[in-house]
């Protein structure tokens, strides 16, 4: 998609020019803001696809990144609200703990990998291994996800408004997967499950929080058949 390149101007916003300051200075500035500070609204300009932008933030900041980012953007995020006004490279919001990361464009592989909490919204498509080994994060993808998404997903929700590629939810634990479109194939030990009113309510809330205009009734739910948790000779064919 053609992602918008300009972050919205907000009052009191301070701008950090990454091209001028360099990555380390930008991240240090954002990481050093103390609790209770009123310097909460930031724009990072000239990201130029560099890696690890806005990593390790741990306070309730609002950070707009004006352009495309490289690998591991907003990794390990806690509390901050990071918006990428462009596309994101590999591992956006990897190991996120809390807060919100929003990608206005597409995301590359392993988006939200190992995330423990918070909400990751990808308005475009996510590539392969989206939500790999997720541990509590909620991920909402406006488009489609690539192959091996939700691989070994342990906890949290992955909502896909488009289609899912091959081997969705391979070796999945207790994460819940919701897909609106087609699923190319399910991975080992991943099965379609009943959409109960409780699941529908969770999905409705996630779509609303993500700002996605999709009917929850159109989605199907997938999860673990729980045959791979412990070795059992009766389940040998599932390995």
């Amino acid at each position: 998609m053609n992602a918008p390149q300009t972050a919205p101007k907000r009052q009191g916003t301070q701008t950090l020019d990454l091209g001028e300051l360099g990555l380390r200075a930008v991240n240090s500035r954002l990481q050093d803001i103390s609790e209770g500070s009123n310097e909460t609204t930031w724009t990072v300009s000239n990201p130029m696809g560099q890696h690890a932008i806005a990593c390790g933030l741990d306070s309730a900041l609002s950070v707009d990144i004006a352009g495309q980012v490289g690998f591991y953007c907003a990794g390990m995020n806690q509390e901050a609200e990071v918006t990428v006004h462009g596309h994101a490279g590999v591992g956006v919001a990897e190991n996120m703990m809390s807060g919100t990361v929003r990608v206005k464009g597409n995301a590359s592989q392993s988006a939200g990998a190992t995330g423990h909490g918070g909400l990751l919204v990808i308005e475009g498509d996510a590539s392969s291994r989206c939500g790999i080994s997720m541990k509590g994060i909620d991920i909402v993808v406006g488009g489609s996800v690539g192959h091996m998404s939700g691989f070994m997903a342990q906890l949290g929700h992955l909502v896909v408004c488009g289609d899912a590629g091959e081997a969705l939810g391979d070796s999945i634990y207790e994460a819940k997967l919701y897909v609106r479109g087609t699923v190319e194939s399910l991975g080992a030990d991943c099965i379609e499950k009943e959409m109960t009113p409780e699941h529908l309510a969770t999905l409705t809330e996630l779509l609303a929080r993500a700002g996605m205009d999709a009917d929850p009734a159109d989605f199907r739910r997938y999860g673990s058949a729980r045959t791979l948790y412990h070795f059992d000779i009766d389940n040998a064919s599932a390995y």
Partner: protein
Amino acid sequence: MCGIVGLYLKNEVLHPELGKLFKPMLIEMTSRGPDSAGVALYRDPVADGETKFSLAHDDAGHDWQGLSEALAKALDASSRVERRDTHALLVTDADVGAVERWLAERHDGTRLIGSGRSIEIYKETGLPEAVYERFGLSSVAGRHMIGHTRMATESAVTSAGSHPFATGADLCLVHNGSLSNHNRLREELKRKGVTFGSENDSEVAAAYLTWKLRNGVSLKRAMEDALDDLDGFFTFCVGTADGFAVVRDPIACKHAVLAETDDWVAMATEFRAIASLPGADTARIWEPRPATVYSWGDDGMDIDAVDHLPPTVVPASQRAAAGGMH
């Protein structure tokens, strides 16, 4: 690691700036490949009946003029040569096979690294910027170029082990990844008469494509067959007389990104290599799908990736702004 980059200029107005636009792309991939670098450049096609050979020698003072004169005499053909640092471009109307045999039989350390009507290959050990500068590539004009920055894993850091590897007339390959069945495949190809200049795994991939193409298989088909016959991780970029083609293995562990505007098409291992191009911030940007051949150029294997878009939901507020989503 390793980094690969490709640039195809759709807008002729930009052709004089090819070398200048390509330079920051290659240099941005230095951290992925500081050992050696190389490019394939397509420009100044020679006359019908002539072939342009890219030659290299470890001795920067190698007597290229003497080689050219000896070749002309031995093969009763025209020959002219131009030195480019450790490389030389030799243009002759002699038969390609005869030139290859003649060079191989001389045993003077000359390496034949590419041939065709317009291709020129330059590759050396050292930092990408130094390699780019020593061959004076910043000022070159042309329509397209592909390049590689190498962090060696499978074989020695040498000029011969650097990319791109020639795969036939006006064809060459750059590779990011590693192949696990290259020893067996190399032996198989040797038995079929294919010769090798290094122990490099990527050269085996290039030789595989060369052999397929020699047997009349189209480039697209050869790249698809590679998906079955090559075991390992790879993103390949293949330079052709008219453009370039990209394919990733079915697992697609090695990174790759494509971007396109009305003026150019670019591919790179990482987007930061593309970020410096004019209009990159508003380009269409997407990740090539696994096991799918993408190509640009007039070689009849065009695939318009936009035709393969998945359905996408975006917030109602963004819907009007959302263009082609890949």
